[in-house]
């Protein structure tokens, strides 16, 4: 058991390092997009460690307890994440719903400490974050319902093996509309540009993050990176057939994250009720049609 926990922590740490570096590389790519060089690839690491070393303020015990709970929840979720179809910390306990709901613990921790800080911007930011979650969660879960119904198993490794088995191909191809909905939901989860209303720097002073500084802000950055890692690797395992070896995983991971980042950098920002209206119009209809096609008619490419 201790060995599994250590592997889990290793995976979480690897996830953090992987995501932060890829985020750094993406900042260079987006920089290039905007005709400038963009910072060094390890800029993200520098920001985080600079913040962790600074002394900052706290608004009471709930303010700190929330941050700890948030980071703890996210690390716990990352520990369950399988990297390739045979490398994961806890054998056949990587159920899909653990990820969806353990992330919620992280969100709850952050939300609690944000509204505990007493700043109205933070509460409004949390409100927007929850509303966006409500928006992207349902279509995403409908598509996942189709996937689990087809594979007959809700553990990620089984889904990966199902996609890698001969004869059937990745769900991105097998359920094209589902894959698209999954990607849009991923954009929502990552908080990339069209759905970035809850950390909108201009409108609500970067939302929940407004009162943080120093180590609290640093921990929240780490939390943000690891949750990005979880969400992107979820997408990779569910729709791109996971990975047989670590390099395949890295390549797929990089492609997906960069694509999401590129789309985000050219987009504007939705108002919060536009986000909800958008998600409950097109993605939901596409998810339901995909589900009906896949489950009732059984047409899976």
């Amino acid at each position: 058991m201790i060995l599994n926990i250590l592997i889990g922590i290793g995976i979480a740490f690897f996830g953090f390092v992987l995501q932060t570096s890829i985020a750094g590389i993406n900042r260079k790519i987006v920089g290039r997009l905007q005709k400038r060089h963009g910072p060094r690839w390890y800029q993200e690491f520098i920001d985080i460690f600079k913040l962790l070393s600074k002394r900052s303020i706290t608004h009471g015990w709930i303010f700190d307890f929330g941050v700890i709970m948030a980071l703890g929840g996210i690390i716990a979720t990352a520990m369950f994440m399988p990297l390739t179809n045979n490398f994961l910390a806890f054998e056949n306990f990587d159920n899909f719903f653990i990820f969806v709901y353990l992330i919620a613990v992280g969100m709850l921790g952050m939300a609690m400490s944000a509204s505990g800080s007493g700043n109205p911007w933070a509460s409004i930011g949390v409100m927007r974050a929850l509303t966006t979650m409500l928006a992207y969660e349902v279509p995403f879960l409908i598509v996942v319902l189709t996937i689990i119904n087809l594979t007959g198993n809700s553990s990620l490794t089984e889904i990966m093996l199902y996609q890698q088995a001969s004869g059937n191909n990745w769900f991105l191809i097998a359920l094209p509309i589902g894959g698209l909905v999954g990607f849009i939901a991923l954009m929502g989860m990552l908080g990339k540009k069209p759905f970035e209303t809850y950390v909108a720097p201009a409108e609500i002073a970067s939302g929940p993050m407004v009162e943080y500084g120093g180590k609290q802000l640093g921990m929240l950055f780490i939390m943000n990176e690891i949750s990005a890692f979880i969400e992107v690797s979820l997408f990779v395992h569910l729709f791109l057939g996971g990975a047989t070896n670590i390099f395949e995983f890295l390549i797929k991971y990089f492609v997906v994250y960069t694509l999401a980042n590129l789309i985000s950098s050219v987009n504007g920002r939705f108002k919060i009720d536009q986000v909800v209206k958008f998600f409950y119009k097109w993605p939901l209809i596409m998810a339901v049609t995909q589900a009906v096609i896949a489950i009732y008619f059984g047409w899976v490419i």
Partner: protein
Amino acid sequence: MASVELLILFLVGAGVIAYILTRFNTFLGSIFTIFAVMFVFVSLAGYGFGMNMDTTVNILPGISFTETYLGFYFAIIIVFVYLMVSFFHPYYLSEYKYKNSYNLLFLLSLAGILGAFYTDNFLNLFFFFELIIWTTMFLIPQGKSKEAAVSYFGFSIAGSVAMLIGIFITYNVSGTFSIYQGLAALSGTNAIFVFVLFIIAAFAKLGSFPLHIWLPIAHGNAPHPFSPVLSGALVKLGAFIGVLALIRIAPATGLFTAMDLPIGQYVVAILGSMSIVFGTLMAIKEDDAKKLLAYSSMSHGGYILVAFSILNGIAFAGGFYHILAHALASAGAFMAIAAVARATGTTKMKELGGMIHKMPITYLAYLIAIISMAGIPPMGGFISKWLIFQAVIDKGMIFVGIAVFFGSVGSFLYVFRPLAALFLGQELTEYKKVKEAPLLMLIPTFILMGLNVYTGVFPGGILKFINNIIVELGYTGIEVSTYEINGTNGILNPALIGLIFAVGSGIAFLIFIVLKKSRKVELMDTYTAANFVHDEHLLHYAVDFYAPLERLYEKQSNWMTKFYTALAEKVRELGKLGKYLFMSKNISTTVFWIVAIIIFLLWGEVL
């Protein structure tokens, strides 16, 4: 060998003694009530788990008991909720108008509940139901509004009357009043009639979609210590009838090919999912904390209905476990709100804020309760939601799936609203001198916190007991080992999740401790973009918490209330028409009716 009949008689006797004691001094009377309920709980738990309650009847005329796992499961949960709530009585009863009748009615309704879950005869079931209805009906008007009792009574009576008609149809078909033979003997169209009638009764008591108007009114306005009982315990009666209808009768209506589910069950599932969606939407909009929790009970009632309408072991396990998890969670949440309401006098989120600073333990109790209510891992709610998701996905029910997922995410929103608006945020000046709830009231909060965590991390024992129920109902149970639950398409190890969450938090705590200690700053000193704000009311974001979301469905939110008021108006107009037709002042109408009847009768025969 505790006998059910003696427990009921003991409760009635205790009720009368409590009446006299509370007349003499409320504190004493309430303490006596606590011990009375504790005695019942202990004797029930002691003998009940081993299924050796003595069910012989020698005093009560015409009443017969039988012991079933199903009945015991419901009884033990509800008696436990009663016990937890009775700890609150000493502090609340003093300001009610008819306080000495409060304990009496409280114990009488408990006697009714014990009887209802242990009887095997339909008429006794109806007798105990009606007893519960009218005893609880008199408790509700002691709270804020008086109309709450009328709408509560109206819907409950409509439900139990529908059940009674169903009972008489079964009596007509099977000739016996015994629940189990009676329901087994049903078939064909009779089965469908009785099924529909029982479902109406279940919906009325559970407060599900079409008949949910009374839930927020009754729970919101009931006296503070009584709403946990209302939503934690009494709503489960509806679930009990739902189980009878959905599992015992399960009429063989036409099969829904895609999901091999009888149409009757699927319709109930759809209605259940509609009550999930509407409950969530209405809860997000609600400003009064207790009404918000009432709507959450409505949406959880929807979950229970969906679980029981999918005919397989996993769904039943999810449903039964959800009954337990919801009972604990909503009781805990309501009691926390009751503690806040006692200290501040209001449950409106507009007028509250920053209660965490003065009532931290109540805050913790509320936090753990809402984590379980939202179905987030370390707590019990997650297990039952996971089981229900397994069943829904396995059956491939897409539209029910949408509602179930929407409900689980939406519950995260509406449980967070009181947390942020009521407990966190700025600390308002008028509540600076508020004290934490007294010790006696904290005992149940601690117990409930512990139980919520226990049901979330070690569900093995409870699920094994639930397996007995499922086997008793005639379906195969789920395989549960000490730490793992394996559903149809996945294995879950809640203990492991709890452990890993602890490990994660440990790491985060380590990071936090290692780094420099941050300077404590009081709440008013926040980033306000350079304009000076001196009043914390302005800085407290509580009113219209989800404004952008609420604007989306503003107009359609009170369709149902308008429908029922229109219905009541129609009945009143019918009455006026009746008065005009038959009760007019001049005599000619009576003469007209007499002549009309004679002519009508003689038309065919003599004329």
